[in-house]
């Protein structure tokens, strides 16, 4: 389903749309409040942007250095060219260790690779341990937001879901009660799982260590209790030096949720005695994006979701309407790289207002890339024929002053005489808006009478 259709359905529930908009706007306001407490905020953004530019220009060297250091630390490093290879690597590690269940903390990469479905088809039981992810997993839904996966749900929805799956009291919506039940439920899983999978927020090239940020401590709980820890990362997660964490950790949580820092920013460097640690480094289209000059800097993204929270379209259409693991403005410039046909609608799901680029902590020119994707998609043949014909006609009219002036004058006369021709159900403008009232003369007519002698 295209974004506009899904958004149309989303908007049928007016009250819920209001609630969704206000909830995310509140997060944007929290971000403003905490970000503006830092006088050097804009300098921090610029610094992070430059560090990431450097990373993208020297990615090969940093990845090789990261791998060398990680191997030296006793970590097993795997390389995956695409989603299928990534999923296969994870499965093979499970099989080698005779393990058929795992706990997983938040990883958008595994969502991108559709790993959960793949593993469950292969008889592996995956438990998402991030509370929001667990809620959507129980409902068999994808996350609607990369930082707050269940932000589209109200506490009543969570209560119903928990009643169905975790036997909570029907109608008890108290957040404290519901989280307590979830905590006990997840605690059991942590204790029994022998393999934990986590994402990676930052991978440090000079040390081979990686940092995982969570608010719930679920990545730590999983990784410390399991015999095998697999960390999966897109190859753009590299930063050159440990000291650069001082820039990124200050930006990440402030941009994401308006917190000064995530509750847990956990550094993993080497396996504990008797434990295995694996890192899977994934390409899955990233090399292609790196080769697209206009779009490469989308790979600077640190997945804070500030662009989603500020996006007036995202707030009023919900994450699922983007039909991609990463929704919102950033998802709309990443997705077409993976599949232009499937995601041709996304760069058009924006007014190009530019708020996304302004909140981006690594200064990705998101709205300019949306504009550029539109050009690429149309030129690659992904525009509907009707639109193509319409645009050609429009360009003809605007390129020929006589045609434009005649068309305008005739058009206005028709609108005046036969308003039903435009004021009808075929005109999407008219569905919820009045058409402008056509004046009897254009500005040009007035000008000729009053100025040009």
């Amino acid at each position: 389903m295209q974004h506009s259709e899904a958004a149309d359905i989303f908007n049928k529930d007016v009250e819920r749309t209001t609630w969704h908009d206000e909830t995310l706007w509140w997060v944007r306001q929290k971000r403003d409040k905490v970000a503006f407490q830092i006088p050097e905020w804009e300098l921090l953004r610029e610094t992070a942007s430059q560090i990431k530019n450097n990373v993208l220009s020297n990615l090969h060297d940093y990845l090789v250095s990261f791998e060398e250091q990680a191997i030296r630390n006793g970590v097993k490093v795997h390389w995956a060219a695409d989603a299928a290879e990534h999923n296969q690597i994870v499965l093979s590690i499970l099989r080698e260790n005779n393990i058929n269940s795992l706990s997983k903390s938040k990883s958008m990469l595994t969502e991108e690779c559709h790993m959960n479905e793949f593993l469950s088809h292969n008889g592996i039981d995956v438990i998402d341990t991030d509370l929001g992810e667990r809620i959507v997993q129980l409902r068999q839904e994808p996350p609607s937001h990369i930082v707050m996966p269940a932000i589209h749900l109200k506490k009543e929805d969570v209560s119903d879901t928990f009643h169905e799956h975790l036997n909570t009291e029907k109608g008890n919506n108290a957040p404290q009660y519901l989280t307590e039940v979830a905590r006990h439920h997840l605690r059991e899983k942590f204790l029994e799982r022998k393999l934990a999978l986590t994402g990676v927020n930052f991978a440090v090239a000079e040390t081979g260590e990686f940092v995982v940020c969570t608010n719930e401590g679920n990545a730590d709980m999983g990784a410390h209790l399991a015999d095998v820890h697999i960390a999966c990362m897109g190859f753009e997660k590299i930063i050159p030096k440990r000291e650069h964490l001082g820039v990124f950790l200050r930006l990440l949580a402030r941009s994401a949720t308006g917190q000064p820092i995530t509750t847990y920013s956990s550094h993993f460097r080497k396996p504990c005695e008797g434990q295995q640690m694996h890192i899977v480094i994934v390409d899955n289209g990233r090399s292609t994006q790196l080769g697209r000059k206009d779009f490469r800097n989308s790979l600077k993204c640190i997945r804070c979701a500030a662009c989603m929270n500020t996006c007036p379209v995202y707030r009023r259409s919900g994450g699922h309407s983007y039909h991609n693991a990463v929704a919102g403005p950033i998802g709309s410039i990443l997705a077409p790289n993976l599949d232009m046909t499937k995601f041709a609608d996304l760069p058009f799901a924006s007014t190009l207002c530019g708020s996304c680029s302004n909140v981006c902590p690594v200064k990705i020119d998101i709205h300019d890339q949306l504009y550029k994707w539109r050009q690429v998609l149309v030129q690659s043949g992904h525009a509907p024929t009707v639109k193509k014909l319409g645009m050609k006609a429009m360009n003809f009219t605007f390129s020929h002053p006589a045609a434009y002036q005649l068309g305008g004058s005739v058009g206005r006369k028709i609108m005046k005489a036969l308003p039903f021709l435009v004021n009808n159900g075929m005109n999407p403008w008219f569905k919820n808006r009045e058409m402008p009232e056509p004046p009897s003369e254009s500005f040009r007519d007035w000008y000729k009478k009053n100025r040009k002698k």
Partner: protein
Amino acid sequence: MKVGLFIPCYIDQFYPQVGVATLELLEKLGCEVGFPLNQTCCGQPMANSGFEHLAGSCSQLFIDNFSEFDYIVSPSGSCTLHVKEHVGIHPKGGIYELTEFINDVLKIDKLDARFPHKVGLHQSCHGQRGLKLSQMSELNAPGFSKPEKLLRMVDGLDLVTLDRKDECCGFGGTFCVTEEAVSVRMGIDRVRDHVKNGTEVLTGGDTSCLMHLEGIIRREKLPLKVMHIAEILNFSN
């Protein structure tokens, strides 16, 4: 100083009073203004829809019409931004949106206008974030606003403070019909912010945004009047 007046197509056809107010205002402020009669459109509707490659002939027509002027001035942030970024014309003095031109080139500090009403300013995104006509709420940077500065020179005008001072109205060019549901919802939310905070006259620098908001206001039969900022700055009685 020869100023070429660029009146976007939809203003020419549907809102001639905005063109008249812009022209009168510029003349009142001492400019020699010309309106090339063969101008049509800047080509933005095609470009924003992904058809920039088709718009070459349209751009050429624009260049032919405006090449004799020192400045190009337009009562639209969005069209001005498009001309600046995509049309490929570089007049000696530059290309300006109306309030930007009055602030930065004419540098006036008083205005002979009176408008005793509660006015709410809608910041159009292309004017604000594209042309940087005012500070953007996302940035940790000192505030300023070129349109607001001019509105504050108008005698009797009471400027309303909004809850969300620079949220997009949802017009977005062809977005307003291809994403009809979200577009309308965004417009309704903007209008409600103005109603809640006591706006009597909703104004802005982009007639496209105003056309969309006015369409909603008229459909919902709300007691709000919509006027382009040029009409207010040119208003006196």
